[in-house]
């Protein structure tokens, strides 16, 4: 389950980068006060980790401030899917924990 969570976040991060990279008008929340961002010229690791962070934001239905129309559409869609994944993954985790408790009680 944790593995699927990580894989989902990874794929979501890459998808967000694809759609933010089209227009390059998106600004991450840390750079709001400058109203411009140097993220698109940064090195790979910085870009990827930033996108992972924002993917987790989308997964938790937080603010990522999309600007252009395609970005808004993608983020809306991914938020709806994320809400379902949230329920699915954490529901499954709850069941697993319950099973473990049962096994402990037996002995």
């Amino acid at each position: 389950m944790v593995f699927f969570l990580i894989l989902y976040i990874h794929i979501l991060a890459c998808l967000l980068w694809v759609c933010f990279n089209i227009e390059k008008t998106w600004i991450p929340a840390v750079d709001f006060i400058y109203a411009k961002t140097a993220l698109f010229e940064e090195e790979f690791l910085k870009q990827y980790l930033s996108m992972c962070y924002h993917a987790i934001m989308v997964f938790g239905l937080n603010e990522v401030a999309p600007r252009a129309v395609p970005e808004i559409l993608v983020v809306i869609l991914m938020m709806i899917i994320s809400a379902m994944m949230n329920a699915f993954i954490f529901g499954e985790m709850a069941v697993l924990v319950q099973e473990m408790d049962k096994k402990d009680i037996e002995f």
Partner: protein
Amino acid sequence: MLDAAIVRQPHIVSARSNVRFVWDFIVIIFAVVNGVTLPLEIAFGDQFSNEPWYRVLDWITISVFILDVIAGFFTSYVNISSGDEIFGMRMIAINYITEGTFLIDIASTFPIDQLAVAFGAEQDGSVAQSLKIFGLLKIQRLRRISKIIGNMNQT
């Protein structure tokens, strides 16, 4: 026809054998690796997709998955209604194509983007990039994990 199909054939690998188990394991490892690297290539592709180690990894992954499709035709399956293990090649092929994952396997494994490049699309153009998304279907092979876990629980 059924009676003939149950007889064990030397060139057909049993679905319950160790060989198949190890092969499933290898395919799952490559499915995980591919599930991580493919989104990275689509999103950040211009930064590392032309490195030699990445090209080698890409071709190894593709050949493993093509071998997996071929292996699907040489692996027996268990008939759900009768519980018999079927070894007839004809019936294996029919089962794999109609009830198995043959179509998804083909769509995910076949390097469509390379074909598009061969027909004149740009190597790093948007057409070839977006065709790579089909490769994400390879992740569905992870469903075999549940089969392997079931195997481990039995023993």
